[in-house]
């Protein structure tokens, strides 16, 4: 398709503190199916980046292969994107991040990409606490190859043809918490009010921020009996907490009822406020978050919201103790020890 977006801008469109309108964060017209959950997530990314006033070109968008991985074309057209190979986005994002720590890294993947072929890379990016926002567009099926079950499909979930998935599901959010991820959230593509602040909090987090976003496949997995359909997710969605994102310049304006809100400071002076928190679990406690997810699995609930967060963590650059200056900007004088040192090296081999 060769649709072009009109370049006309309404003169009074609201701008963010950088002077950009929301349109400056958009990308090309989507070529996904009409009604695809992924497009709503792209919209939420646009909204979050605009509200956060991130310079669009200071974002690097990376993805694997699949429907989800096509989406980086549909947002932030002034940011460089890299559609890598199937399941391998995490390693490319790792290299990119090592080369230039000053950009924001946004990785997009799908359930086939991350829960099957790319499971190894997903797991190890978490281990290293790579500073990246990792958005999983989770529809429980392989859309681009016409609807085969993926590893995140629930047991008993029915495909369009009526066949039931017989294999155990992989819950990537639980797995991420188990592996030590420092930010894990789950949301639903149809709940923008929840999703946008979660993406903003993820962008502000200084480590691996994983967002598992249930995103129905309208063409292959939106049928009766599927546990990833719009209607099923709406019926079973249980928001574990609500989240407000508060940028550094703003103060918290809402008064929350006592003992129901929790304020957390993130990287760079950003704050989030978690409210309507149930009393039986604590998103700062890994074990209680895991317990909550296990319970939900038993009762068939889809728990959404910020599931776990460790606000202060050491990302890969900190662990490797690299310089502040981006490595890709270092020059000969910074990198080459020179001929005199080389003569010393030669001497040590005589």
């Amino acid at each position, binding site marked *: 398709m060769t649709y072009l977006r009109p370049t006309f801008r309404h003169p009074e469109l609201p701008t963010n503190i950088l002077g950009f309108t929301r349109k400056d964060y958009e990308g090309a017209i989507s070529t996904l199916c009409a009604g695809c959950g992924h497009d709503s997530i792209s919209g939420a990314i646009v909204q979050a980046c605009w509200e956060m006033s991130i310079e*669009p*070109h*200071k974002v*690097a968008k*990376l993805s694997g292969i699949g429907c989800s991985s096509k989406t*980086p*074309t549909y947002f932030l*057209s*002034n*940011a*460089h*994107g*890299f*559609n*890598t*190979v199937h399941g*391998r986005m*995490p*390693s*490319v*994002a*790792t*290299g*990119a*991040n*090592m*080369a*230039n720590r*000053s*950009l924001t890294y946004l990785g997009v993947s799908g359930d086939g990409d991350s829960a099957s072929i790319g499971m*190894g*890379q997903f*797991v*190890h990016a978490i281990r*290293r606490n790579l500073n990246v926002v990792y958005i999983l567009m989770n529809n429980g099926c392989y859309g681009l190859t016409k609807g085969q079950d993926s590893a995140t499909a629930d047991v008993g979930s029915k495909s369009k043809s009526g066949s039931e998935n017989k294999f155990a599901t992989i819950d990537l959010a639980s797995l991420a918490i188990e592996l030590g991820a420092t930010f894990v959230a789950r949301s639903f593509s149809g709940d923008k009010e929840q999703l946008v602040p979660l993406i903003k909090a993820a962008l502000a987090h200084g480590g691996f921020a994983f967002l598992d976003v249930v995103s129905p496949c309208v063409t292959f997995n939106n049928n009766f009996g599927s546990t990833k359909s719009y209607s099923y997710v709406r019926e079973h969605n249980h928001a574990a907490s609500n989240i407000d994102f508060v940028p550094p310049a703003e103060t918290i304006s809402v008064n929350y009822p006592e003992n129901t809100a929790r304020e957390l400071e993130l990287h760079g002076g950003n704050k989030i406020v978690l409210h309507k928190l149930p009393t039986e679990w604590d998103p700062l406690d890994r074990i209680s978050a895991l317990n909550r997810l296990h319970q939900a699995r038993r009762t068939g609930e889809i728990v959404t919201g910020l599931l776990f967060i460790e606000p202060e963590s050491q990302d*890969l*650059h900190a662990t*490797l*103790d*690299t*310089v*502040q200056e981006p*490595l*890709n*900007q*270092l020059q*000969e004088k*910074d*990198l*080459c*020890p*020179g*001929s005199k*040192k*080389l*003569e010393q*090296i*030669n001497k040590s*081999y*005589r």
Partner: protein
Amino acid sequence: MEAGRGGVNDLVIRFANVNGTGSASANNMFAKAVFRMGIPVSPKNIFPSNIQGLPTWYEVRISEKGYLGRREGIDIMVAVNPQSLPRDIEVLEPGGYLVYDNSKDLPPELRRTDVHLIGVPMIKMCIEHFPEARLQQLMKNVVYVGVMSALMDIEVDVLKQLIREQFGEKEKLIALNDKALMLGRNYALEHYPCPISFRLERRDLIGDKIMIDGNTATAIGAVYGGATVAAWYPITPSTSVMDAFAAYCDEYRKEEKSDKKKFAIVQAEDELASIGVVIGAAWNGARAFTATSGPGISLMSEFIGLAYFAEIPAVLVNVQRGGPSTGMPTRTQQADLLSSAYASHGDTKHVLLFPSTPAECFEMMAEALDLADRLQTPVFVMTDLDLGMNDHMSAPLTWEDQRKYDRGKVLSTQELEEIQDWGRYVDVDGDGIPYRTLPGSHPSKGAYFTRGTSKDEYAKYTEFGEAYVRNVDRLLVKWKTASTLVPGPIKLHQKNQSDIGMMYFGTTGHAAREAMDLLRSEHLLIDGMRIRSFPFTREVEAFIQEHEFVFVVEQNRDAQLRTMLIQELDISSKKLISVLNYNGLPITADFISRQIREHWPVAVSQ
């Protein structure tokens, strides 16, 4: 007993050890002492894929003529491994010397009458002089070095100096090692006529040469060449590239004020991730590399195709070992030419560099980083286990301080500001190399979506056949450009002297030159050319045209270089005669000359 065997500064000695017993440092000391006496020396480890308990050998060739390739025939065997003793005795040349531990008597069936038997009660002496078992075992190695110093006239001061350098401030260890050294030396002096017929005399044949392994030299090349991101997964025989890179970076790449690192090394979960990290870093403008061996290249193949097609620089060091499959992980081969040159699905071709010495490992590693940036494509530095893991006598490493890194066609923010029309895959200069931009460099220009799928000149996704053809044909133009930039071959003689030529590459170089000398002494003249890169340059094609027949010497079964020459240069297969060694041991001059002699009548009669 064969009479008259022996000689000054011309011999092969083999140490038969058990791995994990500390023999390596004693053996290194032996070789280094020869080097310090100004005599050309070439040691080789022949070791098992194991940490402790299996047989391992250390073979040292000493050659006044400067022949550094392996030579067949063992003149002296230092046999201290009971496990391999029968075979070790069997391979000794008649008239040679067997140095063994006679703490226990040599079984009668192993007593050869055609070799000199030099028994030394090594472990007995160690038990007498050193208190604990581990120390006794370690010192036994130093004892046999002492024995050899007496038998072969190795200057004892040189050995003592090496001990001091190894242990530095640790006076106690120095004293223990000195004691063991002199125990062995004095025993030999008292019990055997010294020196034996194979002996050393000090010379001045080393000049400014160094003795270093290829993996370390490669790593230093990466430091000097400006690599900042390295990713790897442990695999023999490449692992020491990354070890050395980390060590030299720690020494020379720390920011003064903060002591923070101007490099990032990621030990990845597998080779797929290693190359992914390299490609991500290079896409984002850092110089990046990985080091691996054949199995790793197989795993990286999908990503290599992406880097070729999306045009992203990447440097891969392939320290080749014996394949296929797990093959012979601790033996040497040059058997990954095809799998590297054409790695990945679809139509792909990659730049290969073939270093032959540690100095070339250093130079070519730095050059590979330049070439990858210039050509925006993967570049392979093809070494092998022999070059990578053994110490080699080599020209010193040199660097011109004025040298600038060639970062290739990367548009700066300023250039982007001024440019009117830019397309990621537009061939502006006619050399097939487009201009690239880096993430974050301009607010509104230069961003594009990098992908492995087909695209037009402006990086827009397309499945339009003509656009695809234009793109892959441009990659062929770039390939031609590459053939003008890669290091050309080295001819052994400026002028041709024969209708018969010989081509070789990498570690075959030493043995090949020696083989040509051997054949010349029999009036069989051959012109030699050492190939240093793929794509082949024009000189390679010309050399084949100038000769009636060309022997192609390789260390693999399937004549991979020959296949590539036939394929890429459209040469008649009848013109190229293979000489192939693939038993996992470094090729020898004897082997090459024997094969050539056998084929010679065929070559000239045709």
